[in-house]
């Protein structure tokens, strides 16, 4: 009877954003994400207090998935950031900080939600259309014929994750590996529709990062003894492969819903084993060199195959099935008899490989779109962080392949964008407002809130008490160290802007980021020669950043629009 218990009434709160508790929790969350942001971001250690796994991270995906958020409004915020990260991998912290800032800034203004939401939406579309336009001054085309910009992109991602604990040298090494792994997944002779391969990350913990490497093909981990039994194999031509997805252990398959009565003395096990050995004979007569099975192979069959110099590897697991199918070109076999000859595939060669203390069975493909990235790091938590970072970088490279543009990183895009918004709202407010009911004053207010939210994101790049400046020509970001002498000679103190595109020796004028200044037109249309000469740029993924910007503004709008929160207490 207890399960028929009446439901408890829900808790209903009006105007949730005005409550002090919500404001405090929001600002706590904001402080957490802000302090993680950028290359000099602080690390967070997450643990449950009962021992066990400790996570040291500064990445939004790891951070937010471990945080236990209870307030529904914060939940909306963190879930939308997490959803963004799982689609684009990058720019999670940017999204979270911008969203928090927007909510905070707008609340101070005291305008009606309708006006705020409408104007935020206008400003967002202004940003998006600028970043997508030809005249945009903060994006550069990605040239796939050289590795320079791609390397910059990967390096920027690696340096922005300090919890990976990489030295400069290691960063260079891992960046190159990631890029190689990515390039190996692109099919050589693709026409029209490109289907990318896959890079499998193989863990090698407690090793030097420098030992990390990329190999074409698939590595299957196994014990040394096992490996010795299988190898060496002597064959000059390619090896014929049979890949089984059904079990070869001699289980009796599904017999249906009725009953099966077995007479005394009849041994089904023997019957099945006979069947398996028949299968083995067929494989041998078909000249198969390598039998791979997702599940278990019966020891008798295994021995039979070994006797006939056929390598049998079982318990491969479901995760490797798809890459194996793709690499060897087989059709996973689900039958214990009458195998169609075109279900077999092939590999170029197999060999044993030893990395650190681990032994691997290495399948070398004929045509590689599958590769293995052996990733090493000193300890487990650092390895986890590095793995996440590598996945992010690989994903970003894929996104960049689809949309071959990159944004200037290091905060320059944001400062440039704020300069552009200020200029637009000041000089051409009618084009933004169109025929809306909002006034120009309201637009100015919201634009200021929007810009200062973006600037606060940039401001959180600096964690060591330094100052942030912006120049009045390009609208880029420049940072000064905290202990620098008083404002005497800017060009000597500043060397390069945040993204590394411009240096301070040009005739530029600077002003502090948060100081009031006149709106100016930031230089649009990036000169290509400037990009070509710069070798060490900080870059961001365009697709991820655009989506992050959209998600942040949409989520902020959503939260600002809330008039009630109904909490189900059941």
């Amino acid at each position, binding site marked *: 009877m207890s399960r028929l218990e009446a439901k408890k009434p829900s808790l209903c709160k009006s105007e949730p954003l005005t409550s002090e508790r919500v404001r405090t929790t929001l600002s706590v969350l904001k402080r957490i994400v802000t302090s993680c942001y950028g290359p000099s971001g602080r690390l967070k250690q997450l643990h449950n207090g009962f021992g066990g796994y400790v996570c040291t991270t500064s990445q939004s995906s790891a951070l937010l998935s471990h945080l236990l958020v209870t307030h529904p409004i914060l939940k909306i915020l963190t879930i939308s950031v997490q959803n963004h990260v799982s689609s684009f991998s990058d720019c999670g912290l940017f999204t979270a900080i911008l969203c928090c800032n927007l909510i905070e800034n707008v609340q101070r203004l005291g305008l009606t939600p309708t006006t705020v939401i409408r104007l935020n939406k206008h400003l967002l579309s202004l940003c998006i259309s600028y970043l997508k336009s030809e005249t945009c001054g903060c994006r550069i085309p990605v040239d796939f014929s050289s590795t320079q910009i791609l390397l910059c992109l990967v390096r920027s991602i690696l340096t922005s994750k300090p919890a990976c604990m990489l030295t400069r040298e290691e960063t260079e090494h891992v960046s190159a590996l990631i890029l190689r792994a990515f390039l190996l997944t692109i099919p050589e002779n693709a026409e029209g529709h490109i289907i990318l391969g896959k890079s499998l990350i193989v863990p090698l913990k407690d090793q030097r990062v420098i030992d990390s490497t990329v190999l074409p093909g698939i590595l299957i981990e196994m014990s040394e003894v096992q490996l010795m039994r299988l190898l060496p194999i002597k064959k000059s031509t390619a090896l014929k492969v049979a890949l089984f997805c059904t079990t070869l252990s001699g289980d009796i398959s599904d017999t249906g819903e009725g009953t099966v009565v077995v007479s005394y003395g009849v041994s089904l096990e023997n019957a099945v084993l006979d069947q398996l050995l028949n299968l083995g004979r067929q494989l041998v007569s078909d000249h198969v060199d390598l039998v791979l099975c997702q599940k278990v192979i019966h020891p008798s069959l295994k021995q039979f195959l070994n006797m006939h110099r056929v390598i049998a590897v079982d318990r491969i697991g479901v995760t490797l099935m798809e890459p194996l199918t793709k690499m060897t070109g087989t059709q996973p076999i689900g039958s214990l008899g009458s195998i169609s000859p075109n279900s077999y595939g092939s590999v170029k060669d197999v060999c044993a490989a030893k990395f650190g203390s681990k032994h691997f069975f290495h399948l070398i493909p004929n045509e590689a779109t599958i590769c293995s990235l052996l990733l090493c790091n000193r300890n487990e938590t650092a390895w986890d962080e590095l793995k996440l970072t590598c996945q992010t970088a690989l994903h970003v490279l894929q996104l960049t392949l689809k949309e071959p543009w990159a944004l200037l990183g290091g905060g320059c895009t944001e400062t440039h964008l704020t300069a552009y918004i200020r200029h637009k709202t000041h000089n051409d407010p009618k084009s933004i407002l169109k025929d809306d009911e909002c006034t120009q004053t309201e637009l100015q207010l919201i634009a200021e809130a929007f810009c200062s939210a973006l600037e606060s994101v940039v401001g959180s790049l600096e964690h060591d008490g330094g100052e942030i400046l912006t120049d009045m020509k390009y609208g880029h970001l420049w940072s000064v160290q905290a202990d620098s002498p008083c404002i005497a000679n800017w060009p000597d103190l500043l060397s390069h802007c945040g993204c590394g595109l411009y240096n301070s020796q040009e005739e530029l004028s600077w002003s502090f980021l948060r100081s009031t200044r006149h709106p100016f037109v930031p230089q649009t249309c990036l000169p290509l020669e400037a990009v070509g000469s710069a070798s060490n740029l900080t870059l961001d993924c365009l697709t991820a950043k655009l989506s992050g910007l959209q998600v942040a503004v949409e989520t902020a709008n959503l939260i600002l629009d809330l008039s009630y929160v109904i909490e*189900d207490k059941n």
Partner: protein
Amino acid sequence: MLSSMAATGSVKAALQVAEVLEAIVSCCMGPEGRQVLCTKPTGEVLLSRNGGRLLEALHLQHPIARMIVDCVSSHLKKTGDGAKTFIIFLCHLLRGLHAVTDREKDPLMCENIQTHGRHWKNCCQWKFISQALVTFQTQILDGIMDQYLSRHFLSIFSSAKERTLCRSSLELLLEAYFCGRVGRNNHKFISQLMCDYFFKCMTCKTGIDVFELVDDYFVELNVGVTGLPVSDSRIIAGLVLQKDFSVYCPADGDIRMVIVTETIQPLFSTSGSEFILNSEAQFQTSQFWIMEKTKAIMKHLRSQNVKLLLSSVKQPDLVIYYAGVNGISVVECLSSEVVSLIRRIIGLSPFVPPQAFSQCEISNTALVKFCKPLILRSKRYVHLGLIGTCTFIPHCVVLCGPVQGLIEQHEDALHGAFKMLRQLFKDLDLNYMTQTSDQNGTSSLFIYKNSGESYQAPDTGKGSIQRPYQDTVVENKDELEKPQTYLKVHSNLVISDVELETYIPYSTPTDTFQTDETLKCLSLERNRLTDDYEPLLKNNSTAYSTRGNKRIDISYENLQVTNITGKGSMLPVSCKLQNMGASQSYLSSSMPAGCVLPVGGNFEILLHYYLLNYAKKCHQSEETMVSMIIANALLGIPRVLYKSKTGKYSFPHIYIRAVHALKTNQPLVSSQTGLESVTGKYQLLTSVLQCLTKILTIDLVITVKRHPQKVHNQDSEDEL
């Protein structure tokens, strides 16, 4: 003891409950409405402006509140719209009733009676009011809609006969709908999306069945993708199945598919049967046979050009393997809804593997345009280009949003919009009673109160409202029965001259023209007559009861029964059935599909105006009161809608302008663009009145500690 557990069900209590609900829903009402965040017990968050969802999420405990919520959800199930308006209107009605009865109570209360006694007495009064409400809803409302309001209706169709729909008017309708349902930064986008979807799915011959299909299978026709901005939502041609291929073999050209609902591989034994294994060889042979049989079936499918196999169950590895070998793509574990949707779209019955294998052609295959994997945010789906055989061209909506809660809101709103359109595309039958007494030819409505209550009078006993002729009616009951049986015999007959004779004696002498007219109508609608047999009979009985009255209370009758003019010319819509009594007639007419009015409280203001006019002409105090209360409560809705507007667009200005326009017979000018369905509004009104009636008829709410009997029974069954 009992009284401590029981709460008196009164208007006051109901009003208190309704006011709390009103406070919550009015914040998300109309174009300026805001969002409400709900958490589910599982910890998920949901954004909503859907009144029904909000009310359910509150998990209310108050019995009256729960009743109200039940009424709202049953209304929503039917129409998909109007939950917030429901609450606001109900609240205003209760407020009106409360105010009126407070005033009326004073003379009654001067007697020194005990509180309990007074409560029971009040309850009797509520009962009368609730009866008046029922009468209003069943007999008057339709008439006002038909005779006055209908002249203001616009049609959504550009051509009423063929029901063709132009995009701009649908856009107006949908934009107004989504204004109240999704966040204000997305409503334009979502309404455009819905519009696109509508015109992509529908052919010119589209009928109501397509709305039913989309309404029934809406869950299967959309895919939610989190982590992308809302503006990435789009419409995809074909059907997207939320499953991945078990085997995918790229194919083009002539692709045929089959649906299976059981495993293709034959099994050792089916349920209820027994398979006896006598030797190992037998086992091996049977396994071999199964293998060969599966192989043969798959080969046969291949030879019939079948390249896609949809299965509602999981297929064994063997089947998957042979499908792959034969170049047949397989999708497994499809839900029964998806299977039935596909079957409805292409009219395909499942393929049953032949028992005795023959090379015959498989009849139940269907052609598909394409079949390929679709990747939405790194998740794989099956994209199927079905060729529909019905008027529905299959398309899917991909809904994107930063969080699942927002996607659900949009999905909900789109589904509701289809429900609303489904209602809009139906004709609405209106049945009402009319009293035609005006010489000028404009008929005025009149409700013959007495007849409705003649049967209830014995139950209610002596209420506080006295009727002088009540007793006489009860006495005449015997007389009434005779003509009733007489009619019963005849109404099943084919209409003939005999029937004309049947009717004439009961019509007033001045009425011969009218009778002819009636007959004409009847013969036109011959098949309709048998359908409407029940109301016809009932109508007659009321007619006779008035006849009975006439004899006794001549002066009264003379007042009501004056000459009756021909009705056919006055009705805006063709009259389907008329049955004349001495002084009143029951009319059935219908509101054509696609009736709309401009948004912004136009319906409410119009109905308010005509109800007030009606109340002025009304002869009975109860009628006047009920009409006035309803008329005034109606204004509560535009008042909420224009809450934030000032100056020229504030509510008083709008109201005065509208009333002036109505008085001078000028067209109404609406300040807002957008249209809303009249059917929806009408259904809402009736639902609210029914709910109010329900509330008023309850006099005592008793809390019981025991579980309700029904639940207990169910439990014991489970245990068995």
